[in-house]
């Protein structure tokens, strides 16, 4: 049974260990129609597209985390549309592990109500599997970033996902040295967009929620011994994941992270979904810092479903030409 989620801060290991398929919901190729009866047109198309998908497909339930103002309201809107929902209050301010462990304990109760049992052994198994998947994806991306795969693995059983990535690693070839572009943004579930960058002669690196932010973690260095310490492990794992603009960090960790990623790149592209407030607030100051490092920077605004690939191509090619 599919349990849908939108945000990479969702503890998918818990959902999986309860016997459900954690399924990341994205906007699809379908036009957004039904969703506009539930939410205004100045919400981002990731929110509207996911709602459209939820209204048309079969899901057991949905899990939300409060990442932005839109997601916060979306939980209620999904519920109003007749969906089974749960919101986990992942803190906006990164730090308090203990508080979040309690949230996770409550989440286990919710999973139980949904018909899924969580126990220590099964949770450890899920933790191990997802860590394996994450490490394999890292390996694959080090050879050659493969966004189609990175997106696909978020919608299938983790064991199949590992097999799929294994296969891809076998056939992947190390990319040739080419000018490198860092793509930063939230989500872009359309693999064709990344191809445009390659076709324009870039090698690609990313800071995206449909790319590396799905699998970049630094794991706590202790071995869980019981359910409680496993929850603590999850809490720490997610708090130390690649930083996201929807969270507040000490010492501007998010900016420092992006600037470091950009060091070996020639250009940076902000691939932003229209109406995505957290990213658009960061954009001007982050751009200035990147330009201060001598990087060429471009902004490409997206609306889902992406249809005007040629417009994107023109911008990307123009960027390639100025390097």
């Amino acid at each position, binding site marked *: 049974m599919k349990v849908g989620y939108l945000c990479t801060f969702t503890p998918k290991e818990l959902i999986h260990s309860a016997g459900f398929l954690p399924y990341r919901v994205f906007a699809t190729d379908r*036009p957004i129609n039904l969703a506009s009866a539930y939410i205004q*047109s100045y919400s981002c198309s990731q929110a509207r597209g996911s709602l459209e998908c939820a209204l048309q497909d079969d899901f057991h339930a949905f899990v939300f985390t409060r990442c932005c103002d839109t997601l916060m309201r979306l939980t209620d809107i999904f519920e109003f549309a007749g969906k089974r929902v749960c919101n986990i209050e992942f803190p906006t301010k990164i730090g308090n592990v203990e508080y979040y462990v309690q949230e996770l304990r409550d989440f286990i109760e919710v999973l139980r109500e949904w018909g899924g049992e969580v126990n220590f052994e099964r949770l450890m198994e899920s933790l191990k599997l997802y860590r394996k998947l994450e490490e394999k994806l890292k390996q694959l991306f080090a050879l050659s970033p493969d966004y189609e795969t990175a997106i696909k693995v978020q919608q299938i059983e983790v064991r199949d996902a590992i097999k799929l990535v294994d296969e891809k690693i076998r056939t992947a070839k190390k990319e040739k040295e080419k000018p490198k572009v860092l793509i930063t943004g939230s989500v872009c579930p359309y693999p064709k967009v990344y191809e445009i960058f390659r076709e324009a002669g870039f090698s690609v690196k990313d800071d995206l929620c449909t790319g590396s932010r799905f699998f970049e973690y630094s794991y706590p260095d202790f071995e869980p011994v019981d359910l409680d310490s496993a929850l603590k492990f999850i809490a720490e794992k997610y708090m130390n994941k690649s930083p996201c603009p929807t969270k507040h960090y000490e010492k501007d960790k998010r900016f420092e992270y992006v600037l470091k990623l950009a060091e070996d790149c020639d250009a940076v592209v902000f691939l932003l979904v229209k109406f995505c407030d957290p990213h658009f607030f960061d954009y001007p100051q982050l751009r200035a810092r990147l330009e201060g490092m001598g990087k060429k920077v471009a902004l490409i605004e997206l609306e889902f479903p992406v249809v*005007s690939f040629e417009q994107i191509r023109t911008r990307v090619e123009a960027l390639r030409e100025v390097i």
Partner: protein
Amino acid sequence: MITVGIDIGSITAKCVVLEDTRILGYKISRVKPNLEVTAKEILAETLSFVGLKREDVGRIVATGYGRNMVDFADKKITEISCHAAGACFLISNAGTVIDIGGQDSKVIAVENGKVLDFVMNDKCAAGTGRFIEVMAAALNLRIEDVGSLAVKATKKLKISSTCTVFAETEVVSYISSGEKVENIVAGVCDAIAGRIIAMANRVGIRREVVLTGGVAKNLGVKRAIEERLGFPVIVPEEPQIAGALGAAVLGQKA
């Protein structure tokens, strides 16, 4: 009593003369930059068409975007109330009125000519007549031909963007990739229908569904709406005059 309803829309002006419950005649004209002149002219034209003088008229009611510019009107009522009244006058068992106008679309829940609830489009122009106009221009078509072309389509191409500007780019890219015009047009009509049905879902759809406004004459849009609803909708013989007629009807009561 003889009443006159004048509907000054964003693109066309409509005028209806009503005697009790009998339509004596009506006129439709293009709106001129000066709305007051537009209103005066269409009133004079319609009255002379039915052979009446200004003194014969008991009451004049203005509606539409330009209603407040019609100084000589005895009363001004919004097009929502007027479309509801007009549609119910024509189709007495109407439950829902869908009016796709030039700048604004509305879905009105009605009962015996009274408005129960209504929803209008948000700022975005998708789902209005303006949307078709922009697409028709991109395709180099006359707006009147859009509907008849759409019904000849062999498939419906998907117009995914809700934004008029982006949708125009989509249409242009279909042209350059050699898609048939009728298939593109069918996609445009379906996109509008999608928006309208989403709006209608907010008030709830009750039969009979009556389609009014200029776009109701567009067969492509009508069929696309019917496909999505799963049952036929009713288009009055002259859907464009529903607002003006409703104004005249409400003039009888006021």
